[in-house]
């Protein structure tokens, strides 16, 4: 076990404030100047079942939760059963003694204490915070301040309850863990918040969505911020409406974005193709969950990659990129918004539940974010699809006395429908030119993350799995080279060439190894082994480090 990391796990029923307790814990750690990673595991239900949050914190940048926790707080029996093996060496488990008796662990009469208060169902979370506060040596005043800030409803009761719990735990494990303070407090955000903010920073004007886990919280975040930033945020009647509304908005010059998961994305593919031929700039956030079909809505997977890469009928350019960290999700969203406008073609930001809904401390240099600007029409005759060496026709938006026609049929430069053989291949060629322009552009950007190591093997990964891999390598003290392409289409093969015949290992979350195939097939990479996980759960760094070790040996 990594002893620079402290992990807190809190588990209970949906509706008992598990996630909230988790994020209060995260804020406690971040307020201590520490780095934090929080993963929320929840079922597709509203009340009951079993949810838990795991927060790992360290004095240095940390990019994954650890499943072995130093402090486990379980609200109910089911939680105890689930997490019986999740206790780190020297860790402690605190359980609800009103629900059961246990040998290993410290029982607390959570239910009976909570029942003394009118909002009894909302007390458990407060209790978990109190337990954490006691074990990491917070004074009661400090704790009370946090409770006040974070649980503003029924403050007095909350403080009283917290105090009771604090007093119960203190004798057994008060001050048990010492957490060193860090340099400064950092904001904690989820991947979806990073995406939302990145989009706003990049110039977002309108967002369309239809709720779908794990993308829904982009809709929610943006809806909340709509007034503040002057955006239109619309929950439409279906994903088909969503993508076509976005294209309508793009026609007026509005920077439009949409977000969904696999099923909704499938419904958008005709619209994606429409964006291809109309050369409509539109950015789609595709946050993956295990498929096929409805699959496992609240868990994580990376099995929509192949679909995303060639979604939509016909030949056209789809830009596909996947952020490796929450911080990068911010920059990349702004960058993708810029790219789709620069290249007038649809883009897909591919991510996963694990990035979308996990939260972590981030440091973001806002000024570094891109601002989406298209090439604009200046003067002369206006032709919407004017042929240019780089394939990119200057844009113009209504109202204008010039005629601007976007056309779903094959068309001439003016945007008028054509069935003429020459014009058909001409316009294919015109659009196809954009790929080369894009590659030239991307060659100037840093679009593959490479960390040079000492081993003779390289680890390839992408998306949020990158975070798991980095943490696994650190906790396993392993030092291979790690390579994570951010752009998946076009795949930066020019950057991957050097690894071609080396000893390459891939780590990904797809049962058929979609990323492995991509690397082998598109980049011609020799891949010796793929470490896969496809049970809906993200990798645990400890387990993963052992697997990597095995493979590297």
């Amino acid at each position, binding site marked *: 076990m990594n002893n620079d990391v402290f992990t807190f796990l809190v588990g209970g029923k949906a509706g008992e404030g598990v996630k909230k307790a988790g994020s209060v814990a995260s804020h406690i750690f971040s307020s201590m100047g520490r780095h934090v990673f929080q993963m929320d595991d929840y079922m597709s239900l509203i009340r009951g079942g079993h949810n838990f949050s795991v927060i790992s914190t360290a004095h240095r940048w940390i990019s994954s939760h650890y499943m072995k926790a130093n402090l486990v707080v379980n609200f109910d029996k089911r939680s105890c059963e689930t997490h019986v093996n999740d206790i780190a060496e020297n860790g402690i488990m605190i359980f609800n003694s009103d629900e059961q008796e246990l040998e290993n662990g410290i029982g607390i009469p959570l239910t009976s204490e909570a029942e003394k208060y009118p909002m009894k169902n909302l007390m458990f979370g407060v209790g978990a915070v109190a337990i954490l506060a006691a074990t990491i040596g917070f004074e009661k005043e400090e704790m009370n301040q946090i409770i006040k800030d974070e649980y503003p409803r029924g403050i007095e009761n909350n403080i009283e309850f917290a105090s009771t719990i604090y007093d119960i735990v203190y004798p057994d494990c008060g001050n048990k863990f010492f957490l060193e303070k860090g340099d400064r407090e950092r904001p904690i955000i989820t991947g979806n918040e990073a995406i939302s903010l990145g989009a706003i920073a990049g110039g977002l004007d309108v967002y369309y969505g239809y709720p779908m886990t794990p993308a829904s919280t982009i809709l929610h975040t943006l809806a909340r911020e709509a007034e503040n930033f002057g955006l239109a945020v619309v929950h439409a009647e279906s994903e*088909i409406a969503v993508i076509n509304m976005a294209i309508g908005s793009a026609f007026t010059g509005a920077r439009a974005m949409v977000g969904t998961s696999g099923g909704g994305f499938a419904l958008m593919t005709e619209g994606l193709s429409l964006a291809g031929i109309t050369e409509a700039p539109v950015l789609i956030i595709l946050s993956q969950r295990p498929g096929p079909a409805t699959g496992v809505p609240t868990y994580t997977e990376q099995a929509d990659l192949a679909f995303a890469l060639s979604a939509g009928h016909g030949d056209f350019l789809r830009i596909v990129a996947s952020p490796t960290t929450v911080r990068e999700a911010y920059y990349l969203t702004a960058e993708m918004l810029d790219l789709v406008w620069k290249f007038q073609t649809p883009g897909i930001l591919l991510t996963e539940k694990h990035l979308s809904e996990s939260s972590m401390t981030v440091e973001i240099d806002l000024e570094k974010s891109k601002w989406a600007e298209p090439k604009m029409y200046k003067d002369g005759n206006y032709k919407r699809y004017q042929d240019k060496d780089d394939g990119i026709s200057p844009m113009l938006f209504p109202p204008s006395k010039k005629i601007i026609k976007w056309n779903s049929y094959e068309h001439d430069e003016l945007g008028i429908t054509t069935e003429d053989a020459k014009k058909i291949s001409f316009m294919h060629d015109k659009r196809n030119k954009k790929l080369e322009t894009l590659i030239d552009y991307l060659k100037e950007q840093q679009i593959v993350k490479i960390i040079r190591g000492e081993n003779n093997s390289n680890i390839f990964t992408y998306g949020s799995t990158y975070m798991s891999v980095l943490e696994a390598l650190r906790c396993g003290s392993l030092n291979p080279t790690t390579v994570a392409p951010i752009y998946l289409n076009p795949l930066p093969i020019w950057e991957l060439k050097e690894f071609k015949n080396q000893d390459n290992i891939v780590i990904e979350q797809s049962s058929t190894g979609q990323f492995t195939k991509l690397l082998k097939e598109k980049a011609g990479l020799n891949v010796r082994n793929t470490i896969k996980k496809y049970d809906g759960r993200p990798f645990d760094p400890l387990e993963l480090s052992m697997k990597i070790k095995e493979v590297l040996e």
Partner: protein
Amino acid sequence: MEDLKTGAEITWCPGCGNFGIFTAIRNAIPILEEKGIKRENVVITAGIGCHAKIFDYLNLSGIYGLHGRNCSNSEGIKIANPDLKVINFSGDANGLAEGLTHTMFAAKRNQDITFILHNNSVYALTTGQFSPLAEKGWKGPSTPRGSYEEPFNPMSLMIEAGATFVARSFAGDIKHLTDIMVQGVEHEGFSFIEVLQPAVPYHKWAEYRERVEYLEKEPETYFEAIKAAKEKHKFTIGVFYRTTRPVYHKELYDDHNPVTQKISREIRLDKIRKFLSDK
């Protein structure tokens, strides 16, 4: 181009009802201009079908969208820049089969767009299959024994969905149609205009001309409107329903316009800084 025509070759059948719609809209635009609606503020969308070819012929900006989906394009245009006046051309398959949900929701939202339904009661461009407005028993290539479905009633359907201006006109009565179009565009809210549009390979003009009738009196209440929609035959033309309620984009953000009043990068970054500092 003063007559609002592009140079595109017109490929409607000789005698097609779409010519009437094309003429009427070209009549309507100058009238609207006189009433203060700038031509460059008018944008059009079309789905896919014979009706939609009007997109290529009409010298106005817009989107030639997917079959069944242009209503969503229209909504997206209006939401992003409410200064624009959107006229949405649709076929009956386009707007009431593939795209029914979008049409219903645009009406429900009272989106301030004008929806023109070219009702030829067939999928004309794909060789004449029965459509949501085809009479039961209609023999097309997909229903050689006659279709099994009762048609929708577009008037009562759209009133039900929430449209605030619901009218029927006829491609053979340019004057009536022009007038209805002008009223539809001027109306603030979702205007639904069904146009009886004969398709010559499938119908006879004479049958239309014989049967077309004017609604004597514009209904004044919801129930009167429903009664008229249900009890008059389907060649009855006129305004069936007219009412007012808030339009979607104003509900969304009063008079804000996300495109013309875009918040600058600097202000955005400041606000994001604030957002992050609270996190």
